Each structure stands twice: as structure tokens, then as C-alpha cells.
């Protein structure tokens, strides 16, 4: 037994649902107790789907257990076929049905339905959601796809996007456009948007573009072996990775079509002087293996951050992440325990977190800015606007997304530093609303009072500012003055100085230079 409050991944049958819900004309008959339908609302609410997931649950109850759960399953299967007329059915068991040992695959097979019925073996007590999606898609390809003559024009399949995938909708659009510009036709995109008959056509493509290894790698390997379709190994998240991906695709397709990278603004944004303050910002990166790998490269090579730590929750990618961590000279954190993630973040004290919605909450608790780079995510990360992570536009989106919390972080820092300032404090409200006018006269007294108390308290740990040093301090730009004062006092205390002279001020400045 393992005590758990938060899980990064759902059970494997939720992964199978992600495949089924992403597809069309496929139905999933799930042997499951009443209540397991909760998973429907992940799709109808978080992803805001306008139709019910194509899943029929047998909803067995306690009184059925002694009797005929197998009969219940067969009836559900028949009803689903009659009502929805799918091109294929996948059948499987949820965690409870796995224990009662009806064999959904065997049962469905004896029914003689006139469509392919594909049994799924998803070990609920060992594996998780991503495995469920990957395995389900692999079984679909294995059962439905056959070797075929390749298309006349160079074409590829796009593999891996599913329902409830982080930005899968827009990534597919972005990469489809990119391939179009390279003169490559997309044969089938699967599972998202595909029907079982589309899957049957997958063999026609010359190669496969694997967008999400977590949900498509097993199928991509199978296609490589059976249909002689090589697949792309680079996931095009970030400007550098997108360029490498293009090189890889050119090699696989022979395409020499020119590409217009005008729309890639991220690289200039990152070089512009506004971004200088990003240099060396310490970031901690956590999420699924693929997004962490991509984010680490962007953080270091394209944003100029320092990667202070990284890790992933899906053990399937532990080896990859350990390799990356070694390259970055940090410790890899492979865990699905958010308390351990929180502890690590606390110990590392990064200036920014890139993670999942869990890390967003950890960030909030610890007061560290955070941007979301990976599933699991909540409803706000299924946005209405176009916001891919992949390709050139994806790089733009990532730049904006990562920077926003930091700019806000800086604002908050300034607010904090000047919280006693008469016209720039929390109570004053935004200046462009003139909100500070009435309260201004009242709070103008506060800094004076503050000075007073500082002067009074100088008897203890805090050294006394000599008049000359105090004057020098006032020459320092107002927005760093507070920091300078604090640093100087800390330095003076650590040196055992009771008075602060101009020299002390500059000694301290040199000491804290970075």
C-alpha cells in the first residue's frame, strides 16, 4: 500500500479513454463498477468536449457480483454496438473488474460482432495513464493497420496526440502546417481525429512523426518494424529542437522546400536587452519526460536560465531524464510523490518553477513564480486561443508563458521593497487609476516612522549608518536602494562592524556582486 493524496497520472483505463475519446467511430466498452464514469467529466469539463466520451461502462453493482457480471458485460457490448454502430470496439477492464476476472476480450470475441473487437490488457495495479494510452494505441495499430503500398507523394503519419493531452490540439495544427510547407502530406494523424479505417491506412505513409513518445512510441516502433516506416526522434518543442526536427524530417523525406521562419520571434525576444535580466535565473523543471527534456534545453540554450534541478513523474522516461540531468550537472528527481517534489524545490530555492499544476500550487505556497509546461493540467490550460508548444509559434508561446510570471514576480518584488512608499504600495492601488490620491497624504508619514524605528533599533545587531554613507545610499537608484541597505547591513553584521561608512557600503556591494 502507498499513501497518496495527489497522483500525477490516472489509472491505465483513463489512458485508453484518452485514445478512444480522441478518435472517431471507435467505441470503448469498459467493464467497471458504478462511479468510474467520473472520468467522463475530465473530458467534458477540463477539455470542454461537446459530446460524451465514446465509452460504455457496464456499471456493475454489489448485487451483480454473485450473479452474472459476464452477462452484463456482453449486454453492454451488444447495446453499444447497436446504438453507436462503431467501426471497431475496444474492450477492457477497470481496476475492480480486473479483480473479478471476467475476461472482456474472450467474452466479446464469442459474440461474433461484425467489426474488429480489440481486447486491452491494462494492469491497473502496476501501470498508469500514459502506459494505458500508449498500449491502447499500439493494440489498435497492431490489429487494424496492414502493410500497404506507399503513397506516390512523400507522406507521413503524425503519431501520439490524444484527448486530454497538453496542447495536443494546437501542436498538431502547427506541425501539420510545418510539414505542409516542407511539401510533405500528412497521411493519418492518430489517435486524435482518426477513425479505425484511417488507422488501417497508416501503412501508406513513408515515415512517422512521433510527437508524444509517452503515448505513441510503442506504435511508432511497431510501424518501423512492420511497415518499414522510420520515425522522428526529436520532439519539436523550442526553436532549436524545431530546427533539428526540420533537419531530421528533411533527411527522412528528401524535402528541400524552403521554410519561412519569419514568424519565429522568440529568438530575437530572447536576445533583446529587455531579456538580459533573465540571465542565470535558477529554474527547477518537472513534468512528463518529453516536456521536461524539451524545457531543459530551452531554459539553458534559448532563455539563458540556469537549470537548478529537473525530474519527471513517469518512470518510463527515467533513463532519458537521468542522462539529461547528468549533462546539466544536476540530480534527476524521478518520483510520483508530490511531497518529495515540494521538498526538493524547497531545498533548491529556485527563482522559477516549470512544472505541472501541482508545481504551480507548490510555487504559490513557496512564493516562487511558476509556469505550466506539462500535464496534468487544469481547465485553464485548455485555452480557447491558439497556443501550441511545438514549432515556431510554440516557441513564441513558450517565451511569453515563461516570462509572464517572472515579470509579475519582479513587480511583486518592487511592491514589496517599496511597501512603505507613499505612492507605490499595495493599498494605493494602480497609479493609472489615481487610486493613491486619497491615501497618499496619510501613508507619506510611514517612511519617516520607519526611518525612526530603524534608527532606534541600531543599538542591537544593526550597525549605525554614518551620515556620509547614508547620503551615498540615497544616490543609489530608488528601486535597488532597499536591497543595497539590507545587503550592507547584513554584511556589516557579519563582519562585526558597528558603523557603516561609505567604504562599508562599497565593500558590501563588491561582496554581493554576481
Amino acid at each position, binding site marked *: 500500500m502507498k499513501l497518496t493524496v495527489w497522483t500525477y497520472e490516472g489509472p491505465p483505463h483513463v489512458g485508453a479513454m484518452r485514445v478512444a475519446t480522441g478518435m472517431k467511430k471507435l467505441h470503448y466498452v469498459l467493464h467497471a463498477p458504478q462511479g468510474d464514469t467520473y*472520468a467522463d467529466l475530465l473530458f467534458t469539463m477540463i477539455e470542454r468536449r461537446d459530446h460524451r466520451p465514446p465509452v460504455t461502462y457496464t456499471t456493475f453493482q454489489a448485487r451483480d457480483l454473485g450473479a452474472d457480471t459476464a452477462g452484463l458485460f456482453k449486454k453492454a457490448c451488444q447495446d453499444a454496438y447497436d446504438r453507436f454502430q462503431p467501426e471497431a470496439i475496444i474492450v477492457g477492464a477497470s481496476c475492480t473488474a480486473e479483480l473479478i476476472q471476467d475476461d472482456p476480450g474472450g467474452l466479446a470475441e464469442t459474440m461474433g460482432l461484425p467489426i474488429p473487437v480489440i481486447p486491452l490488457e491494462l494492469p491497473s495495479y502496476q501501470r498508469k495513464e500514459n502506459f494505458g494510452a500508449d498500449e491502447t494505441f499500439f493494440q489498435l495499430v497492431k490489429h487494424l493497420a496492414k502493410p500497404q503500398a506507399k503513397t506516390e507523394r512523400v507522406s507521413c503519419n503524425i503519431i501520439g496526440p490524444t484527448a486530454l493531452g497538453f496542447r495536443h490540439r494546437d501542436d498538431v495544427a502547427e506541425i501539420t502546417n510545418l510539414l505542409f510547407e516542407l511539401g510533405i502530406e500528412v497521411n493519418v494523424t492518430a489517435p486524435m481525429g482518426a477513425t479505425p479505417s484511417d488507422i488501417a491506412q497508416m501503412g501508406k505513409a513513408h515515415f512517422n512523426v512521433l510527437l508524444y513518445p509517452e503515448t505513441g512510441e510503442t506504435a511508432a516502433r511497431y510501424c518501423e518494424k512492420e511497415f518499414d516506416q522510420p520515425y522522428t526522434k526529436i520532439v519539436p518543442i523550442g526553436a532549436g529542437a524545431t530546427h533539428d526536427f526540420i533537419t531530421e524530417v528533411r533527411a527522412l523525406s528528401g524535402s528541400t522546400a524552403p521554410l519561412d521562419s519569419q514568424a519565429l520571434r522568440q529568438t530575437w525576444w530572447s536576445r533583446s536587452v529587455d531579456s538580459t535580466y533573465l540571465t542565470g535565473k535558477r529554474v527547477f523543471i518537472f513534468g512528463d519526460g518529453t516536456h521536461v527534456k524539451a524545457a531543459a534545453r530551452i531554459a539553458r540554450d534559448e532563455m539563458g536560465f540556469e537549470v537548478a534541478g529537473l525530474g519527471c513523474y513517469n518512470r518510463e522516461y527515467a533513463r532519458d531524464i537521468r542522462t539529461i540531468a547528468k549533462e546539466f550537472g544536476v540530480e534527476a528527481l524521478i518520483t510520483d510523490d508530490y511531497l518529495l517534489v515540494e521538498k526538493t524545490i524547497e531545498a533548491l530555492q529556485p527563482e522559477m518553477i516549470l512544472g505541472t499544476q501541482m508545481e504551480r500550487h507548490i510555487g504559490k505556497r513557496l512564493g516562487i513564480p511558476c509556469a505550466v509546461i506539462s500535464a496534468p493540467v487544469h481547465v485553464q490550460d485548455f485555452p480557447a486561443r491558439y497556443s501550441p508548444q511545438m514549432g515556431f509559434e510554440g516557441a513564441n508561446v513558450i517565451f511569453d508563458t515563461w516570462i509572464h510570471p517572472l515579470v509579475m514576480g519582479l513587480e511583486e518584488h518592487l511592491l514589496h521593497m517599496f511597501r512603505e512608499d507613499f505612492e507605490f504600495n499595495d493599498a494605493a492601488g494602480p497609479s493609472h487609476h489615481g487610486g493613491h490620491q486619497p491615501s497618499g497624504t496619510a501613508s507619506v508619514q510611514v517612511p519617516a516612522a520607519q526611518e525612526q524605528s530603524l534608527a532606534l533599533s541600531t543599538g542591537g545587531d544593526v550597525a549605525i549608518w554614518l551620515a556620509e554613507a547614508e547620503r551615498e545610499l540615497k544616490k543609489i537608484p530608488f528601486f535597488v536602494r532597499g536591497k543595497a541597505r539590507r545587503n550592507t547591513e547584513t554584511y556589516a553584521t557579519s563582519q562585526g562592524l558597528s558603523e557603516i561608512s561609505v567604504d562599508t557600503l562599497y565593500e558590501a556591494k563588491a561582496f554581493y556582486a554576481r
Partner: protein
Amino acid sequence: MPPPPATGCRTAPVLKQRGQREVFCGLTGIIWLHRKIQDAFFLVVGSRTCAHLLQSAAGVMIFAEPRFGTAILEEADLAGLKDAQAELDRTVEELLARRPDIRQLFLVGSCPSEVIKLDLNRAAERLTQTYAPRVRVLEYSGSGIETTFTQGEDACLAAMVPVLPSTDARELIVVGALPDVVEDQMVALLTDLGIGPLRILPARTIEDEIAVGPNTVFALTQPFLGDTHAALIRRGARHIAAPFPFGEEGTTAWLSAIAEEFNIPRALFDRVTEAPRRRARQAISQAAVPLNDKSVFFFPDSQLEIPLARFLTRECGMTALEVGSPYIHDALHGPDLDLLPKGPQISEGQDVDLQLDRCRAAHPDLTVCGLGLANPLEADGFATKWAIELVFTPVHFYEQAGDLAALFARPLRRKSILKVAAE
């Protein structure tokens, strides 16, 4: 207020169907129970699915160090490689070491733990002995194979009844977890009526615990407390049957049933209830404007459907087309069924595809349903009110009557405001 119906729905034929049910399991009850019982921890013994359900249903609450968690069964637990009872002891020890403030621990059974017949009852007894007197350990099942949504609260409260101390005192117990603000209003009303001593189940902490005996009478504030009702009767207590306190009429009828039991003079009753009744009527009449002459269709969810349909038809001018409930219990739902105007199809249980067919054919103005159905129905042009909100929001008694009507009116108001259609 419309005149009372010539005949109610108590004897109306009930459509009973079995098939796919689109409902939560009883584990969901933990999400509001752990807020209510402040020194309790709810430990689900189940699978990753259970943990995932709780986190999906609890939303942002999961990040606030909640007092619930899941002991996820692993391969070794199932294969008998590890002694499940020893594993449970270890998990509980780990948990109580981390949360020393916990006084009551509920071991909550799930589908997997029920199917493998993990004896949580024995575990609870053993752990109670281990941690007495600091911590009391109880057990109930919130599994989907046995419980639907709000029945989880019923199972939890029913598990508390047998261990309540005995008393011969004539006391009133009000049963059902209510938001604190509503509970306080209720206590004030009953106190003003001179009714007491008044006890509440569930109590906020183990210290406030109540006693029960042959002179106890009890009233229910929630219609899903069938097992707790039975458990209290087994302890010798007597139930005061009444409609549930939704809307002005429901609240008055509920208070009046209790007042009658305690022989409260009519004049006092009128004096105490007059002002809040007037406020409630006024608030409803304003909030319910969009509901007038509209039809409503209830999918089964929480067992609140029958009393809510009664409120909407009698106080908001709606017509009920179908009132679906996961379970109908005559002793509990009867008084509300008596008041529900004849006409709607009453249904118990569910075959969701067939019920969706009926709903589409009936074309209601408002459909009350779960979150798995709401957006798909909206996309088809149906206005929906998602039902779970009715369990989480303060809706009982006089002061919330206007809010209750507004919850149903909002989707219709919104539909009339939005000018740009989807396509």
C-alpha cells in the same frame, strides 16, 4: 404560492431501469464530510482510480493539505505477498505520525477492497485499540458497487451511530452535514421555537459528540440518509417524518413537524417564522422569474431530486417532466412525493442512454444533470444545471431559498443573455 395538488406522486408508478449509470460513487462524500468533521481523516483503501476520482472531484481543494488520502493497493497486496492488515497498520501509523491532530480516522472501503474482501471492520477495531483513547477508528464503504454519490455520507454517519453513547434524555438530533452558516441558522430557528436540547450529527469534533436512546427523536435535513435513519431506529430513536427544508414551504413544513412533536404553540411558531418566511417568499419571487412556466427534467444524482422538484414546481412555477433519483425511500421521500404535483415520470435507477433518449424527446427547458452530461447536452441546445453544485452550495432553509431558485434560474438567464450562437 400555487394551490396544493389534488393528488401527489407518492403512489405514481415508478420507472425502474438498470443499465449504465452516470453517477459518482460514495467516496465523493469525503470531499464535504472532511470539511465538516474537523478532527477526522478519511483514508480510502482502494486503487489509483479512487485517488484519481477524489482529486478530480475535489478540484483545487486537493492542494490545501486535505484530511483525506488513498492507501493505493499494489500488486503485492493483491497477490497476497504482503499481509494487507499489516500493510494497513503501517500506513495508518505513517499517517497518524504525520497528522497528530487527527482524533477520528475513517477507513473507507472501495470497490477493490470490497471485491477482495479486505476486512476493514476488523482493522478498525484493532486500530481503535492500538490508538485509544487519542484516536477512534471507524469503517464504512464508499464503494461504487454499494453506494451512489451522497450515500457516502449516509454510510459514514450510519457507521458513527452504533458507537454513540446511550442516553434516556428526550433530545432532538438533527442529522445531515450542512454548511456551518446554514447549521447556525437552523439552530437559531429551533432555539427561538424553544426546542431542545438540540444535537447535531455529524458533530464538528469528537468532543461535541452526542448520545442516543429510546427518548431521542430525530429529523433529517438530507434525503439520502436511509441507512443512518435505520441505524438510529435500531438504537430506539424515533424519526420525525417531514418534507425536506428546501424553499419557504419545505422549511416551514420541516420546522412545523418538529414543533408539533415538541408541542410548540402555533402563535409562537408563527411569530418566530413570520419574518424569515416573508423574506424567503420575496427572494424566491424575484429569483424565480425566469423559471415560471418552464419545464424541468432531473437525471438521478444525489437523491435531492424529489424535494427539489417539489420546490421548483410549487414555489417557482415550473413543470416537472421526469424526476430521476438513484434511490427512492418511502419513509424519507414520501412526504415530498405527497406534495409533488401529479404529472412527472418518477424514475429510480438509470440506463443513461435510454434516459437521454427520453430527455431529448421531452425537450425540457432545463435539465438537471451531472458534469459528464452537461456540456454535451448544452452543445445540443439544452439548458442544463449541473447537479453537484446543489450538494456543495448552501441551499437549505429560509435565507438560502432565493439562492436556491437563482441556481436554477442562472442557466436560463444566461441562455437569454448570450447573443452569439455557437455556429
